[in-house]
């Protein structure tokens, strides 16, 4: 065939909240190749795949299948065309068997009774598995098999529906190295049989081991495509992570004081039975901003929840000011002086149905309680207005519900509350996500000011530039562990950090132990 099998031409996707996730992306997927797609989180990979798979409609631009323009109204259309997707979070019914999951929607029936023909389903599954050399046990329930086998079933599902292109979204995130090897062998087998693979990942060693070509995305754009022989790790890593340093923040050097929060050997297993936090420990010092970097999904979100009382760790300790707060409630953490800017402002950080005033004062309403339990509403109102002005929250009135605010303003409400809480330790997670540039600068200056007041700040952000601009020291998380510690953030370049984030490099234990400060 002459041209590419699947093509995106000038594809742009702008979401309802104004985020431009894909900006004029031109991607070619050629038949019979394994194409790797890399990029940081937020680079636009997932959105691009959703558009290719019909789950989202593009705002502008076209999709071409076999040279002809197509429009997918839903993923069913994409499936019919021959595009199959293996999602990162599997779409399986755990109480049913593998065979049943495979045929769901097109179930074989017994002649005569019309009942579900389980044996036929098993046979289909077995035959398919043999043909593609994937080891599965059709009669087992999904709940009882390994994650690796569940993934094989997802692949079989796509193949069963006649997929010519297989899109795999971060497939090795949940696999052991041996299972990864197995998967690669299988994928190469598919390619040899004439299938096409799109392999989304940020693990460069795997891309280099498996793919024929690689496409790099950054900030919603496709910045480059290479044949794997033409590039090395460093070059691709630069393209993924490298950026002009836009923000220069005038920052006086930190004067770190005592250790206010100590975390030791935290462990946590998530609902998918993955050990997302696998022994993280560090010390947080007063008057210092400790940045936490890592590719999303390496334990950052869970870590934050464990040290703010939202989730109970399986093992390990969290000590604040000498007090053991492991597994304590969020109320206890707040009382001990730990404030927390939540990563998810829509479901945790704010109550959308409540007013701005109520959201701003929710952690300190007790101080506005007068005799007989009455709230001093006028004082609350005054304080709320002060905060609205101080944080430049654009709203018609403080009585307005938070849900009606824009994302950036909503974030300012969350930050307005947490930054003014009576806290010595601030856990700040993704503080400027979805916030406009002017506000970002304002928030950054505020964070530094808090540090100068002697507070300990833990800054978790997937925006590397933000961390490098703000943090005094940086810690890298990879697969649930601390793999690097830089006591002087200025000394670390984003390129070098990128290597640690992608798991290509790892410091030795002595260097990492520096994060405890004794």
């Amino acid at each position, binding site marked *: 065939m002459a041209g590419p099998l699947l093509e995106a031409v000038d594809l742009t996707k702008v979401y309802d909240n104004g985020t431009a996730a894909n900006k004029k992306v031109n991607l070619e997927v050629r038949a019979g190749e394994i194409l790797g797609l890399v990029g940081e989180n937020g680079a636009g990979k997932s959105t691009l795949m959703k558009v290719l798979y019909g789950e989202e409609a593009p705002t502008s631009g076209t999709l071409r299948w076999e040279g002809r323009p197509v429009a997918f109204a839903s993923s069913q259309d994409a499936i019919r065309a021959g595009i199959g997707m293996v999602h990162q979070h599997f779409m399986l019914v755990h109480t049913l068997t593998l065979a049943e999951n495979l045929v769901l929607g097109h179930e074989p029936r017994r002649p005569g009774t019309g009942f579900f023909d389980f044996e036929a389903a098993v046979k289909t599954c077995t035959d398919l598995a043999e043909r593609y050399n994937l080891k599965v046990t059709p009669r087992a329930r999904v709940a009882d098999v390994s994650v690796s086998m569940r993934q094989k079933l997802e692949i079989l599902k796509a193949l069963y529906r006649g997929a010519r292109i297989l899109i795999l979204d971060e497939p090795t995130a949940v696999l052991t190295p041996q299972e990864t090897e197995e998967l690669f062998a299988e994928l190469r087998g598919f390619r040899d049989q004439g299938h096409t693979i799109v392999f989304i990942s940020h693990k460069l060693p795997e891309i280099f081991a498996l793919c024929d070509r690689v496409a790099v995305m950054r900030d919603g754009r496709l910045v480059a495509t290479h044949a794997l022989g033409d590039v090395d790790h460093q070059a691709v890593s630069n393209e993924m992570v490298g950026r002009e340093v836009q923000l220069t923040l005038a920052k006086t050097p930190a004067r770190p004081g005592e250790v206010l929060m100590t975390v030791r050997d935290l462990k946590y297993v998530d609902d998918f039975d993955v050990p997302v936090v696998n022994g993280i420990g560090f010390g947080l010092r007063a008057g210092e901003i400790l940045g936490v970097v890592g590719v999303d999904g390496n334990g950052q979100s869970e870590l934050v929840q464990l040290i703010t009382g939202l989730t109970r760790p399986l093992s390990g300790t969290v000590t604040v000011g000498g007090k053991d707060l492991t597994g304590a409630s969020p109320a206890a953490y707040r009382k001990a002086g730990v404030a927390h800017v939540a990563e998810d402002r829509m479901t*945790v950080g704010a109550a959308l149905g*409540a007013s701005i005033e109520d959201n701003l004062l929710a952690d300190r*309403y007790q101080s506005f309680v007068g005799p007989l339990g009455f709230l001093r509403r006028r004082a609350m109102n005054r304080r709320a207005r002060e905060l609205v002005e101080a944080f430049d929250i654009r709203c018609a009135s403080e009585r307005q519900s938070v849900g009606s605010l824009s994302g950036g303003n909503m974030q300012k409400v969350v930050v307005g509350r947490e930054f003014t809480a009576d806290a010595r330790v601030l856990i700040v997670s993704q503080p400027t996500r979805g916030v406009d540039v002017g506000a970002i600068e304002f928030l950054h200056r505020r964070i530094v000011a808090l540090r100068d007041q002697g507070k300990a700040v833990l800054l978790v952000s997937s925006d590397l530039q933000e961390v490098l601009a703000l943090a005094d020291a940086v810690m890298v998380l990879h697969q649930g562990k601390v793999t690097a510690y830089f006591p002087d953030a200025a000394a670390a370049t984003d390129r070098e950090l990128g290597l640690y984030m992608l798991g290509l490099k790892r410091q030795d234990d002595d260097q990492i132990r520096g994060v405890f400060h004794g």
Partner: protein
Amino acid sequence: MADHRRGFFRTLGMFFTDRDRLEPAVISVLAGAFSLLAGVLLIAVASKNPGESIWNFLVGPVLRTYNLYYVMVMMVPITFAGLALCIVYQARYLTLIIDSTFYMGAVTAAAVGILWPLPPGLHPVVAMVVSGTVGGLIGMIPAVLKLKWRANELVSSIMLNYVFYFLGSCVIIYFLRDRNQTILASLPFLESFHLAKLIPNTQLHAGFLIAAALVVAVAVYLYRTKWGYQIRMVGANPRFAAYTGFSVAGVVLGAHFVSGFIGGVGGAVEMSGMYKAFIWQMDPSYAWDGVIVAMLARRNPKFVPVSALFLAYIRVGADFMSRRGDVAFEFITLVQGMIILILASDTIVNYFRTKRAQAQALRQEKA
């Protein structure tokens, strides 16, 4: 900001320009009107004298002063139920335990009214306090079941209603029964137990004023005290509440106690205001009225009186009509059910809001 000029007129103006506030009220009014219309159509179909029946239904309550007073009297238990439900509804719990708290409150009050001689004036008050406490404890049960064992509070409260109804009847039959009566009735209440009548020779009793005072009290409780604040925050977003340091379980249980207390007091008020002895042959069941009032009033006690008036009005109208015609009183449940169905449908309720959001999104895309 020009905050010192904020006042009545600005608030009123905001009522018309602040769509967030106006739309719910409009939806409530439309729901009530639509259901009423459906009810009228039903009468037209079912009655052999549709014109007369409809007239009796819609206008009956104002045709006689006696009826008007009856409407006011009927408003009392409905208001109690509505207030009790507003409170738990603010915490986003839908429990119907008000039936049990009300009924057991009445039984408890009857016991106090019969067995415990106290000076007049004090007697009913003590009864209310005791009944309230009993109601409060009962009211917490569905919340406990939900918090500890994830039991759906609606189902558990309905089943508990059966249990407490039987328990309460037991108490009447075995401890308070008047054996001289043919029907099931308790011994007569002591004179000191009765609430004063607001207007002599009518049924309108001081309970009406108590209910009115309670509306104000609950409004203040929910919107001006810290406990109300806690309830509203927990109801708005329990995850957020936990994250900002609220004790969600404590708040929920507290809300259920207060709600149950109100239910118990409601039962006591009915007893001391309306009756000379406990003569209920079956469960009066104001739970549904409470739900409808709470939904129409959008969980805000401020709007409970007008919603209670609406419900009491149509109840009395239906009663009046059924006595004079051929349409059974029970048709009112169809009107009530329709209101709930309409207000429960998010698509309908959020219709305007959705349209606005869509228009806004389209405008943004063009920009």
